[in-house]
């Protein structure tokens, strides 16, 4: 009697536990994982003038089951140099912007982690505050600064340093500045988190043993903050590869980026299958960085 009651309680607990696990698992499977399967499916279908604008993958007629797997969209991506140039342009731009973010962000995070205790929270809030305003508006700010009649050009013309305005808007340069500006806080945050955890006694030990500052930095600080470097770099690089807003607003016709190309295929050409194929290839290219980021992040989560 007693034992059956305990068994009942344990069974109820097990049931409750399963329900609690199921809630986030089901939601994310339905609204995050399943959609990717659909992108793969649509990328293998044929564009059609219909609503929605793609053909079926499976058809049953005259007692035969027809399965259409159209590789044409992928072959099309390979045949048109525009797409390859866009992928390459995205990766190059994102890489340069990530490197600049790291070069600016690391010393910033280092100074924050070494600042007196009561300053640290203020500095952290100051770095993060811009990212809580509006992304769109922060990109927009640079339109007024970089344009031909913009602040920098007016300033330089006023000083007489240049005779005609420098062309900065609608260039690769503007896109990189935009990405660095928009994503810098996401680089600083994980770096700071790692550098504050750094054990000071290790640095003291190194200095006691006669290591010079630069040597200590390269042999102790840098390896111990590697997790932060990876996390910060991936938080900048991966979204930057697929960035749409920044190349659209600051870039020109020559700055090809894949996020913008995908947007145009989808919204302007209404070619959903090609847009889906573009997304699948982008995902494939980003798989290794995403797994890398995940491996670091899941250590943090547990």
């Amino acid at each position: 009697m007693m034992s059956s009651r305990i068994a009942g309680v344990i069974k109820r607990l097990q049931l409750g536990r399963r329900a609690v696990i199921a809630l986030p698992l089901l939601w994310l499977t339905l609204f995050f994982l399943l959609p990717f399967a659909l992108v793969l499916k649509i990328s293998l279908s044929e564009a059609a003038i219909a609503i929605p604008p793609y053909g079926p993958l499976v058809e049953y007629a005259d007692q035969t089951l027809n399965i259409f797997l159209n590789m044409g969209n992928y072959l099309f991506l390979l045949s048109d140099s525009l797409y390859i140039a866009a992928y390459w342009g995205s990766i190059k731009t994102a890489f340069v912007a990530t490197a600049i973010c790291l070069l600016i962000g690391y010393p910033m995070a280092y100074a924050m982690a070494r600042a007196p205790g009561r300053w640290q929270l203020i500095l952290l809030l100051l770095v993060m505050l811009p990212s809580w305003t509006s992304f769109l508006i922060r990109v927009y700010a640079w339109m007024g600064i970089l344009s031909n009649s913009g602040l920098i050009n007016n300033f330089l013309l006023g000083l007489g340093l240049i005779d005609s305005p420098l062309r900065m808007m609608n260039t690769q340069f503007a896109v990189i500045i935009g990405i660095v500006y928009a994503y810098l806080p996401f680089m600083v945050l994980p770096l700071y988190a790692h550098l504050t955890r750094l054990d000071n006694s290790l640095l003291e030990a190194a200095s006691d043993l006669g290591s010079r500052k630069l040597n200590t930095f390269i042999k102790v600080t840098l390896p111990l903050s590697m997790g932060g470097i990876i996390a910060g770099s991936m938080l900048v690089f991966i979204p930057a590869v697929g960035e749409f807003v920044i190349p659209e607003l600051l870039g020109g016709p020559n700055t090809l980026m894949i996020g913008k190309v995908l947007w145009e295929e989808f919204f302007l050409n209404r070619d959903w299958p090609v847009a889906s194929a573009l997304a699948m290839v982008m995902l494939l290219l980003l798989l290794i960085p995403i797994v890398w980021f995940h491996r670091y992040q899941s250590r943090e989560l547990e």
Partner: protein
Amino acid sequence: MLRLRRRPNFTSVMLVLGLLFLYLPMVVLVVYSFNSSRLVTVWAGFSTQWYGELFRDQQILSAVWTSLKIAFLAASMAVCLGTVAAFVMTRYGHFRGKTALSSMVTAPLVMPEVITGLSLLLLFVQMAQLIGWPADRGMATIWIAHTTFCSAYVAVVVAARLREIDRSIEEAAMDLGSPPVKTFFFITLPVISPALAAGWLLAFTLSLDDLVIASFVSGPGANTLPMVVFSSVRMGVSPKINALATLIILTVSLATLLAWYFMRRGEAKRKALIRKAENA
């Protein structure tokens, strides 16, 4: 920064320069919102006329309202889902599907928005074909999309807090016979409430800010604020957008100041309690 006055070193100079880089463009936005000229880049005198025009723009006002409603609902749902996910990941040891869950919690943090947006749209289209819902895309579909990616951020914030707190209180409650549900609501939840508030605010700002995902999953009926701002900004700079930017920056700054004040007060209280306990 205090040290800077004594001995400027490379990293503190970089910190000051980095902060200037982050803030100068925002200062420029604010200054030119008070410019009387239509040209954003030529100063023609002080004026508040663009604020007047902003408040007369029905399209922007209704978009603000739509965005606030979606952000409120998405943040609230994301806190529920994200907290459950964080709790399961940090407290449940090993279970089937754990790897899948942790991947689906971290991937949205970095997933390019165009991919998330496109994939969710395809899901909604497929669902409409199969079960007839959602017949019209709009606020409901944006709400689902925002809840999904925001809950990942909430999960990360809450999990960080769950790992920090002292588990012995939870264990003591369970040892004394408190059922897990009761322990969660009366012990764990109050302790992690600052993280819940932080997660909610983060989700709220993320939802308010999203342009790309909302553009994919929205229908003709629902225009969020970023969608309206984007279509206006595409045409070039406009002082009305500067006025809007100034109001956004002001709101976020005030909220941050308030958060800082409460965090500092909480910290001071905690220290006073520790001192009292040590003296007793």
